[in-house]
């Protein structure tokens, strides 16, 4: 079973820039993969296509059996609830507590307050931030903020987790910590795709790599695990 399928996907922006051309790959359910490539290679565009923040110019994207080209726009929010996403700049809201930040996807999905409390605490526990729920994210360190972002991405138990440069702003030690957190999530059956240019870390972790170069897949349709 596949979680993500790209079939000859191209994306040309209105500016005329070709961000992706003819990209094809498959990500199986429960698979853990890195998306690497130089800056501007199209990693973010690829992520945005999965999130439906952008639509492809050509080709098909399937997520969890759903052809995204055929997904009407009113269904986009429901699609996004199945995809947890973590950003480099974590996109936290500083006008509310850690708890409220993490609770947001549950509030949106219509969970009752009891369930929200339970799940938020479970999620914060998973990232090692239990006890910080009342703090404002602005008081936390960069690594802690990123972990709040991860807690928010996994609180709804999405089958697919995307991370766009999740360790971009962190020092190597914290980066390794965050990555091992993702690895743990991968072990419980979540499909994980992490875009990063931290090649050393990727090599050390030894998972499958999908490499983009100027918007094209490098090395054919199936990338094997690259070992350092």
């Amino acid at each position, binding site marked *: 079973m596949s979680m993500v399928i790209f079939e000859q996907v191209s994306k040309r922006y209105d500016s005329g820039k070709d961000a992706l051309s003819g990209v094809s790959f498959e990500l199986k359910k429960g698979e853990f993969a890195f998306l690497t490539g130089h800056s501007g290679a199209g990693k973010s565009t690829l992520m945005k296509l999965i999130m439906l923040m952008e639509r492809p110019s050509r080709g098909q994207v399937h997520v969890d059996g759903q052809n995204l080209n055929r997904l009407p726009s009113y269904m986009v*929010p429901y699609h996004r609830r199945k995809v947890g996403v973590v950003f480099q700049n974590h996109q936290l809201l500083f006008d509310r507590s850690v708890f409220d930040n993490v609770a947001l996807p549950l509030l949106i999905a219509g969970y009752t307050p009891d369930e929200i409390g339970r799940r938020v605490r479970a999620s914060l526990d998973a990232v090692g931030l239990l006890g910080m729920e009342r703090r404002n994210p602005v008081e936390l360190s960069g690594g802690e903020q990123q972990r709040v972002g991860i807690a928010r991405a996994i609180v709804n138990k999405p*089958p697919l987790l995307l991370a766009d440069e999740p360790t971009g702003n962190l020092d190597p030690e914290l980066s390794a910590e965050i990555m091992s957190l993702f690895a743990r999530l991968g072990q419980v059956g*979540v499909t994980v795709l992490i875009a990063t240019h931290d090649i050393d870390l990727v090599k050390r972790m030894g998972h499958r790599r999908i490499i983009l170069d100027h918007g094209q897949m490098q090395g054919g349709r199936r990338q094997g695990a690259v070992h350092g």
Partner: protein
Amino acid sequence: MAEKPKAQTGASLQQTTLGKQFAGWAAHHQLVAVETLLKLLRNPIASVLTWLVIAISLTLPGALWMALDNAQQLSSRFQESGRITLYLHVNTSVDAGRNLSQELKRLNNVASVEFIDADTALADFREHSGLDSALDFLEGNPLPSLILIEPRLGLTPAATESLLASLKAYPEVDSAQADMAWVERLRAILAFSERLFTVLGFLLALAIVLVVGNTIRLAIAARVDEIRVVKLVGGTNAWVRRPFLYTGLWYGMIGGLLAWLLLILCWLLLRGPVVEMAQLYGSSFSLKPLSAVAALVLLGAAMLLGWLGAWWSVSRHLGEIEP
């Protein structure tokens, strides 16, 4: 809106039941309603200008409404002034006059008829005019017999006009006079005021929609980041709209309540002078405050307009904010 699509794998998101979903939805409405209201009340400085604009925009048509209500009450008292007086020829006998009254009673647009013969008229005049002794110098009775006609209620001016013409055509009638010019004028003024109320009300309603719309636009601009994140984690447009629509509703409600206070203030200030003025005219007329129904309609309209303003603003600006 459809249930969120089912995910197939075991590790996927756990589904809540439809009932729980509804409970969550209702809980969110409640949460947003309370939160947005508290937000407005906690920080009144930021929105007091909007409240005042709404309140004043509502007070003007509200005051006009109150005035119209009172004027209509006043005009209904003067229904009797719309009566028609027929002056019969001096040589008409009392019997002929009586017969004519009987005949007129059967006319379509006539409500009631009263015959006053010349002698009674003179006696009345003697009594009320104070010219008692002067009248003694007159030879005979110079006054004609009269027939007082009360037209049917709610007769149009044109129908009254044609009734008047048909009455004039009777040979016994010397002249006919409709004592209603000023009642007509009052009605015309009322009709004009009603139209003014409609036009003014429409314009001020538009002003409220625009003012709330602009306030909400600023609120949206201040929360762009939040809206992006909400859309990113699967918030529907309805979910994003909700707090803004409630905010618009509360703006309308607070503005409506303020307008209501202003109208009560107006009433308290005007009540005394109006009663004094009425007494000078020998009337027991007093200024009524806005009725409870009218006050509720005002409040409801204010809330609806606030909501509309928010809706207008949200539908214009939310689409532009995408993650």
